[in-house]
């Protein structure tokens, strides 16, 4: 007989379940302003402490403190606030439209708006983003027309991807927004390739890659880190840790014993762990990473700590697997409310102005929706002609597809 007791399998359990409040102490927060800002040419191994802490700028009173304060102009911050509000309003209306069966499916980014919007504003418009389905904020911040987004969602005759993809799978090369795939993680390593191409060509554009906490387990996360580190690719590797991947919490993705930012350090990549609900921290950390990439110091991995406030998608019911009021109790709060508080603290904003902005944004989104619905929805059947179904499989349509198109009688 063995001298050892029987082994047993450890299966991580989240710190909260329906009927049992989440203990958020596992997040290990740092106070605002407390984490140092390494020089942009820091060696990857010198960022281990930052990858383990939490970069924050806004304190509880809404003041910007510490070395990461980006010292952004209020006017610039207001651009961010507007983009975040637009994103949130857009989400809310599309969520409702889905329930009205105007679109087949929807995914909102409620509570995570600061991340996509903030990084988009920290980048050059010509930098290429390789987003997931939860970075609609990038498109909105970059001024992609809301109507075009909605036409994609409604799969109507003006859908830029011709009805071929499910809702939320946007693409816009001209807005530096790479075509979204339904397969998790695949775009992460592609972003590294794009950044390598930029370096090969002596360009100055960089790339920004996006992935969720859950999807870091996919092979392409590893591929991306390896290639980015080896070739010092000018890329920002964003990990949006919103604590959940459908029904499984971040511990199932390997978040128990190390932060996701620590993955970067272990692979020889400078890494930061950042409050993703702190718009100023997002600006600052994105700026640091972009500067580093552009000056030839290589990739940065940024773990954004945030919370997926809504359901995973319109097909999901989170009350089945987590406490219903989790978001309200999430210690990093709401990114919109926090930026608003900061602007008010700065004296650059007010509750009234905010209410006016909310109303204005709402009107804009409603007008866009009205226009987009005018072009049809999946429900009304105003979709791209089925004959277009055979286009774009190849650059030139081969004979077998022409034959099939004829057989399809379209």
């Amino acid at each position, binding site marked *: 007989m063995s001298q050892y007791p029987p082994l*047993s*399998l450890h*299966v991580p*359990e989240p710190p909260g*379940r329906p009927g049992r409040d989440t203990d958020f102490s596992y997040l290990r927060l740092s106070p605002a302003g407390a984490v140092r800002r390494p020089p942009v040419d820091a060696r990857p191994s010198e960022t281990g402490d930052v990858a383990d802490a939490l970069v924050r700028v806004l304190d509880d009173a809404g003041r910007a403190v510490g070395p990461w304060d980006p010292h952004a102009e209020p006017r610039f911050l207001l651009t961010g606030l507007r983009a975040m509000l637009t994103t949130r309003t857009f989400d809310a209306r599309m969520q409702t439209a889905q329930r009205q069966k105007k679109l*087949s*499916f929807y995914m909102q980014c409620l509570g995570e708006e600061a991340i996509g919007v903030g990084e988009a504003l920290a980048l050059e418009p010509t930098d290429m983003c390789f987003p997931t389905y939860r970075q609609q904020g990038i498109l909105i911040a970059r001024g992609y027309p809301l109507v075009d987004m909605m036409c994609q969602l409604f*799969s109507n005759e003006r*859908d830029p991807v*011709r*009805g*071929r*993809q*499910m809702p939320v*799978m946007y693409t816009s090369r001209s807005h530096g927004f790479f075509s979204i*795939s*339904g*397969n*998790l*993680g695949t775009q992460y390593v592609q972003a590294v390739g794009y950044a390598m191409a930029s370096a090969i060509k002596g360009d100055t554009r960089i790339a920004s890659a996006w992935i969720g906490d*859950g*999807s870091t*387990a*996919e*092979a392409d996360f590893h591929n991306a880190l390896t290639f980015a580190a080896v070739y010092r690719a000018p890329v920002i590797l964003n990990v949006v840790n919103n604590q959940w*991947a*459908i*029904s*499984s919490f971040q511990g*199932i*993705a*390997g978040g128990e014993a190390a932060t996701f930012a620590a993955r970067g350090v272990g692979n020889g990549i400078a890494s930061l762990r950042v409050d993703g609900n702190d718009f100023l921290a997002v600006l600052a950390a994105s700026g640091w990473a972009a500067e580093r990439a552009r000056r030839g110091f290589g990739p940065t991995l940024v773990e954004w700590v945030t919370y997926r406030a809504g359901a995973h998608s319109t*097909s999901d019911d989170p009350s*089945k*697997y987590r406490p219903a009021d989790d978001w309200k109790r999430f210690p990093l709060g709401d990114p919109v409310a926090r930026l608003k508080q900061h602007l008010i603290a700065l004296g650059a904003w007010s509750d009234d102005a905010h209410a006016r902005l909310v109303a204005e944004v709402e009107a804009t989104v409603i007008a866009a929706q009205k226009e987009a619905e005018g072009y049809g929805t*999946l429900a009304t059947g105003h*979709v*791209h002609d*089925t004959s*277009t*179904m*055979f286009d774009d*499989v190849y650059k030139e349509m081969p004979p*077998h*597809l022409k034959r*099939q198109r004829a057989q*399809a009688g*379209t």
Partner: protein
Amino acid sequence: MATMTMIQAIRSALDVMLRRDDNVVVFGEDVGYFGGVFRCTDGLQAKYGAARVFDTPIAEGGIVGIAIGMAAYGLRPVPEIQFADYFYPAYDQIVSEAARLRYRSAGDFAAPLTIRMPCGGGIYGGQTHSQSPEALFTHVCGLRTVMPSNPYDAKGLLIASIECDDPVIFLEPKRIYNGPFDGHHERPVVPWTGHPLAEVPEGHYRVPLESAAVVRPGSAVTVLAYGTMVWVAEAAAQETGVDAEIIDLRSIWPLDLPVIVESVQKTGRCVIVHEATRTSGFGAELAALVQEHCFYHLEAPIERVTGWDTPYPHAQEWAYFPGPARVGAALQRAVET
């Protein structure tokens, strides 16, 4: 006897096997606490504990990789791939490892595992929630590929698969999880309730692998189908009045060739129906086999009615789906030739 949906039948098969055999373990993305995005494992973690039924990281390659290691240890893993569209990261482990382990080690090790995956379209899932990748498995020697078309078979085939000593790819046509969908998407949904094939025994039983079922006898043309397409073919036969003999393959590969050959030698005509893209789909193999074995009995070209050679589109889903109109037209062409 209980009436079950296909989801309930699958869950029942897992329940029976978890109870009967301590070595059976069930895992996958969202499979544990939550019970699966299609609810096929609902309640099983509560019943058997998190060491037998558990959530995994989102890494299909890792899921199949650990399953192979567990099988080598002596367990009978039943991993789930959330959608068949997501098996690709696991393809290396499936092809290079699970399928070849027994061969390359001359039987020293083996990988008896059953990989469940929902497949097929018709739910507006677009190109990443609709695929039917069976042909990518049938080309791989050492694998078994199975696809049920009803709750009774689903349970019996799943139990047979878990008990089988070979690696099995168990494809579940998600469009018929809740009812025998015949392709008429414009009509109200028909549930399994009351359907004879939804009468599923509570306990253990097997539907043997490599056994096809003649689900509709006929004499004018043989239809080879599996999964959802069995129901589409039935609708097409009924609507056209063509006296079709419909064979539900159930085991796609290795397959029940004698039943097919016997039927085609009788009817002299053959229509093959599948939802996957046409080129190099499993229909190609079926056509090749039928003409090899029934050449002198064939009175008309074998026809394939399939998904087109495009990704599965979202908005044009029903133009892509090989529905009863297209199948019916093929039946008529076959008998009129």
